[in-house]
């Protein structure tokens, strides 16, 4: 026989302040946990959502990121002649030799940022069709001009439209803003590849991005690059290239966040235990009456656990609500693979919110268990006397 829920509800209504404080105490660790989890969630969305399967990122053999890679001009020219590469309507090979540099640039919050500047060209834009110009214009080849992600413009000093930033040998002017729909280029500033390389005394590209017509052909190209010992190159399908960067970034913060949430959760569970012990003490006689009517120990145990669970879930929902405003908020952390800042949005997915509620429920059950067991284990006679 189950003790009706109305019984618990009535009691909760009688002590709303205690229930609210307990719930709020559980809400805060839940929020902390959600924010910690939203970090890798958002990061991984960027890294796992970037890349066109038709594109191949060609790097020096042994490298896994553009930062560590170097592709000489000769092999780059050779790639352009390969039959596997798609041609544009004007019969030019669709590819982009690119270079990246990480430059120190002050962020708007006063901290120093590590800005990823990508030297690219028309091909780089054509191969990333999701990158759309939203303001101004694209940089002019040969001029020290930048077109930067709007997100980056908002986060860095001197990167607003029309502003100038010094690195390399030039003062670079921001002539346009683009939007990359939250994908990796939203953490980048783009410039003319040749000018950027000469500014940084580079003689090698970092990578060559290549469009292939089909997966088969792409595989063939990969094979060819791998076989050709002279070239010493390796190709990764673009999505895989970004996926490989997934592990690592954000992990220290995730670790700290989890550590804090779990300890805070223990504190909140203790709060719930206090509240439930008080509830049990206050209802000692009622429990005895319920038992003498014929409710089983199990029912008493379940009733108190459900009450604690209910308060905890309430707190969990509140925690989700508190975290929700952060959904979509842009922040950044270092991508340990490139050492550049990676901007991303906090993402609170339904699965994540479910995890938060699960955490709150665990706190509630953990906190409510001992009091519920006490309530269930007392003999009727003892309870009657205890008043």
């Amino acid at each position, binding site marked *: 026989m189950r003790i009706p829920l109305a019984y618990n509800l009535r009691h909760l209504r009688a002590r709303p302040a205690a229930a609210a404080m307990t719930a709020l105490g559980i809400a805060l660790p839940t929020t902390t946990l959600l924010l910690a989890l939203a970090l890798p969630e958002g990061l991984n969305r960027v890294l796992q959502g970037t890349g066109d399967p038709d594109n191949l990122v060609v790097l020096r053999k042994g490298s896994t990121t553009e930062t560590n890679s170097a592709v000489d001009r000769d092999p780059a020219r050779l790639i352009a002649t390969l039959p596997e590469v798609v041609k544009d309507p004007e019969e030019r090979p669709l590819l982009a030799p690119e270079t990246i540099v*990480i430059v120190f640039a002050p962020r708007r919050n006063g901290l120093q940022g590590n800005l990823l500047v990508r030297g690219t060209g028309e091909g780089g834009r054509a191969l990333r069709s999701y990158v759309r110009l939203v303001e101004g214009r694209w940089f002019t080849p040969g001029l020290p001009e930048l077109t930067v992600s709007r997100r980056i413009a908002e986060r860095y000093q001197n990167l607003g439209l029309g502003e100038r930033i010094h690195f390399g040998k030039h003062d670079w002017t921001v002539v346009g803003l683009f939007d990359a729909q939250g994908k990796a280029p939203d953490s980048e500033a783009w410039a003319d590849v040749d000018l950027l390389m000469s500014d940084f005394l580079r003689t090698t590209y970092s990578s060559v991005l290549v469009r292939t017509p089909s997966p088969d052909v792409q595989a063939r190209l990969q094979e060819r690059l791998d076989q050709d010992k002279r070239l010493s190159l390796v190709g990764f399908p673009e999505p895989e290239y970004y996926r490989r960067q997934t592990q690592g970034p954000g992990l220290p913060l995730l670790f700290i966040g989890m550590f804090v949430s779990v300890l805070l959760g223990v504190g909140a569970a203790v709060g719930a235990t206090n509240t439930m012990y008080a509830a049990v003490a206050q209802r000692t006689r009622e429990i005895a009456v319920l038992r003498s009517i014929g409710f089983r120990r199990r029912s008493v145990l379940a009733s108190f656990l459900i009450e604690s669970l209910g308060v905890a879930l309430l707190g969990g929902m509140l925690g989700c609500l508190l975290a929700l405003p952060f959904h979509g908020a842009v922040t950044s952390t270092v991508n340990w693979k490139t050492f550049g800042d990676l901007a991303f949005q906090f993402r609170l997915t339904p699965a994540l919110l479910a995890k938060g509620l699960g955490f709150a429920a665990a706190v509630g059950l953990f906190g409510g268990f001992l009091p519920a067991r006490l309530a269930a284990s007392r003999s009727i006679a003892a309870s009657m006397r205890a008043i």
Partner: protein
Amino acid sequence: MKYLPLILRNLLRNKRRSGLTAFAIFVSTFLVVALQTALYQFENPPSEQSRFRLVARHATSLQNPLPEAHVDKIRNLPGILKTTPLTWFGAYWKDEDNWFANFEIESDTFWDVFPEVRLPEEERRAFLADPQGCFVGRDLAAKFDWKVGDRIVLTGQIYPLNPELNVRGIYDGPDSTWLLFHRKYVEEALKTSAGRPGRVGTIWFLVAGPEDVAPVSARVDAAFRNSNGETKTETEKAFQLSFVEMMGDLRAIVRNIVAAVALTMLLVAGNAMAMAARERAAEAAVLRALGFPPARVGFLFLSEAVLVAGIGGLLGTLLPVLLFFNSSPEPIMFPTFRVPTGIAASGILLALLVGALAGGLPAWGLVRRPIAQALRRA
């Protein structure tokens, strides 16, 4: 303190609740103290010389190396005592996930600038004698189970070179998680590689005292202005901090976490004290009917809360102090973890403040409530 017995007895009246509340505050204070200490460690690396040790790096990007000639130029600038280059090699061992710090060093001058890296004399000689020699920190050696005499092959990620190294020694130091090997070895092997030979990553040097930091930094940076290797010189502390800050605005994160912890702690303690106040309403009224002034009754209740919180806070502060005293629980993150007095004090103070706030509102309620009304419920 003639009231102490009364306060203590009241505290022990519901031992379970007092204990649980103290425990919650203990956990929270521990969190606050440990986090703040970690942040402090990040911001103040534990090196006796760190304030007098400076580092010059490329002004534009850490990725950019500096010309090797910079080393001698800096060496000959006035005000600089000792100089050595240090270059991040960026290799891993066997698996990309075996990520650790490995540097090329100029073996003759390295110890002039980094005396805290303690290598037994015998092992040092063995290292200097072997062109392919390397030595590793004790914690790193333990992590990968490396012994003196082992041959290890690293996979270079930045340069097309997989160094084959002999472990010649195990060092102790504030941060014993590095692997260090001869710069000459890399220079030889990469003689023909474009862009690499004759370049160093960072240049480290000592100045006589803190008052030299600003002028010498300025002098170094001025010496290379408008060259193709412009430098940015900063203290070791600032340099390390810039790495930490790459992760995010740690200070803001810790500040927010501390706020969340304090609030949770306040809710738990506040709720406990509110429950205690409810049970104690009639007794408080009796005391007031006996002629106890309202302030005294409130004070008695408040001291209970402050005492519980103080005990929790004291333990929560003591735990990290004892736990991290001169030991390194997580070497990569906290080289030597020591709780600064200020942070310890702030932990206890925060707990006391939480106790005062948690007890304050219910105490105020006990005092405000008309006596006659409270007595009718007795």
